[in-house]
């Protein structure tokens, strides 16, 4: 800093203060509380300004004067001798200013200044700048006799030996530590540091994911020389400072949203470019886009979490059910280590809990019943988690009494869900699937545990809302097996985007799409009173779900519904894209064929439909119609 730049200000402002002091300390003048405060501030300001300019004598003298005035301000009655001293200091200060004016520095009066200071008792005294000196910043915790609960880990901080206010500096560090560990302790106490002026302290904290980050933050504070974390764990891993981070899942979600926005901005930018320019910059635009997509996928990967927390919940539920039903139960899990998107995991809890309850309540027989059929008295529940490439399969099985195909068939006919004729033509698997229809139940009594009915429709719709399918196998007397099959362990689903008009975009999971049939090449024919799409010699069922008429330019999207193929007529097919399907909140989530929504790379919103549910709704409508 160039002091010459400030010399003018030093004079104009400094002389003002000097004049205040001279007038205020005049022997005939009275001193009031206000005037003493003003005098004190003037001496204080002079001290600071002189120190900034490097005028040591001036600064020391002003400091001595500040001490006297500070004591007065604190309530001490000014003695005649003190007033004399103060006046003498003011005279000396005037002389020092004159020196600066003539020679550019305040040297030459050192002897006089030292004499004044020694008669005043030196400059070491701390001015009583306030009526009540500050006590302790915080209630000091009692000195820990034994390591406190927070004391498992200690952060040791040393500050610069040059630090002028070590207690204040260590308090700044303490406040920082407290932002993560609100009830940490400091040793020695602040009061002790203030008294002794030691330049280091220890903070008792506990193991915490933020610990190393905190250490880095402390290290970056001014005047902090060294930070050390001591704990058993830290002693072992002294290598890298931070190898893994734990961060809130919402941070990753936010990042995904941000990347979606970036992709949208990029598309806008690209479209705003003149055609020729766009072609010239194609390479950069494409590579930018692909980098963003890659980043997006990497973040999705990072969202994968293990099943541990879910399994713990299920285990607890099984223990609870066992004691409530009086049935001894054994719950085993295979494939615990598999990982799944955290959103998917959260959504899996309810359906799996439902299956576990069903299994324990309806599936597993009473111990006596099991004994009579030669089964071990302990009922077995098995959860298997398998990940094959993108596909995730979760199987829940019990070794209970299994489902009775004949009674399901009978019940379905009785309830008018299917006709007698039709029921006889259904395969075993198709019959079993009937129990996943809403309000279908093979057990009529209400139990406290599963509520009314089996409620497998709830499980089915939960699985399907995640883009998965529910299948079941069962053998009477041997047990049941439920398969929850998801196309991807990440809730990243490839979808085919299409529209029925200019306003909205819709999409269907690409896994459900078999083929696209342009209506310009394939004909719609009337067969037995219903419209069908003719493909050579076969006729495909058409789903009557459209928001606006589809003309000749339309496209029939072939949907794979397991045993048969159906087509959905749409106006325009746009692209396929991998998206994160986010479930809608209420009330849209109640629409069964609406899986959720997603943000396309263009930034547009797309409604994701479930082709399987669409087709099933149509079939059920027809079945009910036929039964009547």
């Amino acid at each position, binding site marked *: *800093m160039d002091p010459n*730049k*400030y010399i003018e*200000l*030093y004079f104009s*402002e*400094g002389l003002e203060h000097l004049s205040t002091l001279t007038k205020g300390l005049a022997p005939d003048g009275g001193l009031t509380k206000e005037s003493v*405060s*003003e005098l*004190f*501030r003037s001496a*204080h*300001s002079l*001290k*600071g*300004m002189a*120190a*900034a300019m*490097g005028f040591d004598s001036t600064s020391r003298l002003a*400091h001595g004067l500040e001490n006297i005035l500070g004591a007065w301000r604190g309530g001490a009655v000014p003695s005649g001798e003190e007033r004399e001293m103060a006046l003498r200091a003011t005279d000396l200060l005037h002389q020092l200013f004159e020196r600066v004016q003539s020679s550019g520095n305040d040297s030459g009066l050192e002897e006089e200044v030292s004499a004044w200071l020694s008669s005043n008792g030196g400059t070491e005294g*701390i*001015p009583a*700048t*306030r009526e009540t*000196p*500050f006590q302790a*910043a*915080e209630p000091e915790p009692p000195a820990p006799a034994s390591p406190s609960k927070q004391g498992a880990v200690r952060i040791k901080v040393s500050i610069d030996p040059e630090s*002028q*206010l070590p*207690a*204040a500096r260590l*308090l*700044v560090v303490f*406040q*920082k530590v407290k932002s993560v560990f609100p009830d940490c302790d400091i040793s020695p106490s*602040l009061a002790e540091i*203030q008294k002794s002026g030691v330049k280091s302290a220890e903070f008792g904290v506990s193991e915490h994911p933020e610990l190393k980050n905190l250490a880095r*933050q402390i290290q*970056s*504070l*001014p005047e902090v020389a060294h930070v050390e974390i001591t704990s058993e764990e830290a002693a072992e891993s002294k290598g890298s400072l931070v190898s893994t981070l734990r961060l809130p899942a919402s941070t990753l979600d936010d990042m995904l949203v941000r990347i979606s926005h970036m992709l949208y901005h990029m598309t806008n930018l690209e479209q705003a470019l003149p055609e020729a320019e766009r072609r010239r910059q194609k390479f950069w635009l494409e590579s930018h886009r692909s980098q963003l997509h890659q980043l997006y996928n990497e973040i999705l990967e990072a969202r994968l979490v293990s099943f541990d927390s879910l399994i713990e919940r299920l285990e607890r539920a099984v223990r609870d059910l066992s004691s409530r039903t009086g049935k001894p139960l054994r719950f085993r899990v295979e494939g615990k280590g598999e990982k799944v998107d955290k959103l998917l995991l959260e959504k899996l809890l309810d359906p799996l809990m439902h299956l576990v309850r069903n299994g324990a309540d309806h599936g597993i027989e009473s111990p006596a019943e099991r004994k009579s059929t030669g089964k071990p008295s302990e009922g077995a529940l098995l959860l298997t988690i398998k990940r094959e490439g993108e596909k995730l399969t979760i199987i829940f099985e019990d070794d209970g009494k299994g489902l009775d195909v004949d009674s399901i068939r009978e019940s379905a006919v009785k309830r008018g869900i299917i006709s007698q004729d039709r029921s006889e033509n259904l395969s075993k698997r198709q019959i079993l699937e009937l129990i996943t229809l809403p309000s279908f139940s093979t057990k009529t009594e209400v139990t406290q545990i599963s509520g009314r009915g089996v409620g497998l429709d709830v499980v089915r719709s939960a699985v399907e809302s995640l883009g998965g399918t529910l299948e079941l196998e069962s053998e009477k007397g041997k047990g049941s097996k439920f398969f929850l099959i998801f196309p991807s362990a990440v809730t990243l689903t490839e979808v085919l985007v299409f529209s029925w008009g200019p306003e909205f975009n819709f999409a269907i999971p690409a896994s459900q799409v078999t083929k696209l049939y342009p209506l310009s090449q394939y004909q719609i024919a009337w067969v037995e009173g219903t419209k069908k799409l003719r493909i050579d010699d076969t006729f495909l069922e058409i789903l009557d779900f459209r928001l606006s008429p589809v003309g000749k330019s339309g496209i029939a999207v072939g949907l794979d519904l397991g045993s048969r193929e159906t087509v959905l007529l749409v106006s325009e097919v746009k692209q396929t894209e991998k998206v994160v399907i986010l479930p809608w909140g209420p009330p849209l989530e109640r629409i069964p064929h609406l899986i959720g929504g997603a943000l396309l790379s263009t930034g547009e919103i797309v409604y994701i439909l479930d082709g399987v549910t669409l087709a099933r709704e149509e079939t059920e409508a027809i079945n009910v119609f036929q039964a009547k």
Partner: protein
Amino acid sequence: MPYKVLIVDDAMFMRAMIRDILVNSGRYEVVGEAANGEDAIQQYSALSPHLVTMDIVMPQMDGIEACKEIIKLDPKARVVMCSALGQEALVIESIAAGAKDFMVKPFSAEKVLKVIDAVMASS
């Protein structure tokens, strides 16, 4: 965009010095100056600066009271105390009251920026 700073000090000399240090860094812009605590509070509400440098000894309302009032107004306020040697108890009081950091006179550009940069970086 440089961060907005309010400088509070009853000495014009000190304000000029701090202003120059901050402005020369290119990272800060001085949006206001106040010579006492009351004026500081008023300017704080009017200007919503990112940071305040607060002298302790001032007429009318001292820097500690002003610091406390400003933090009452805006709990996230970044107040950096400007202290002289021998005012440790006052600095401790203001930090306990929520001041983010402090610097000790006489100032050097290096010292001032080290403290202020660190405060801006950590919050």
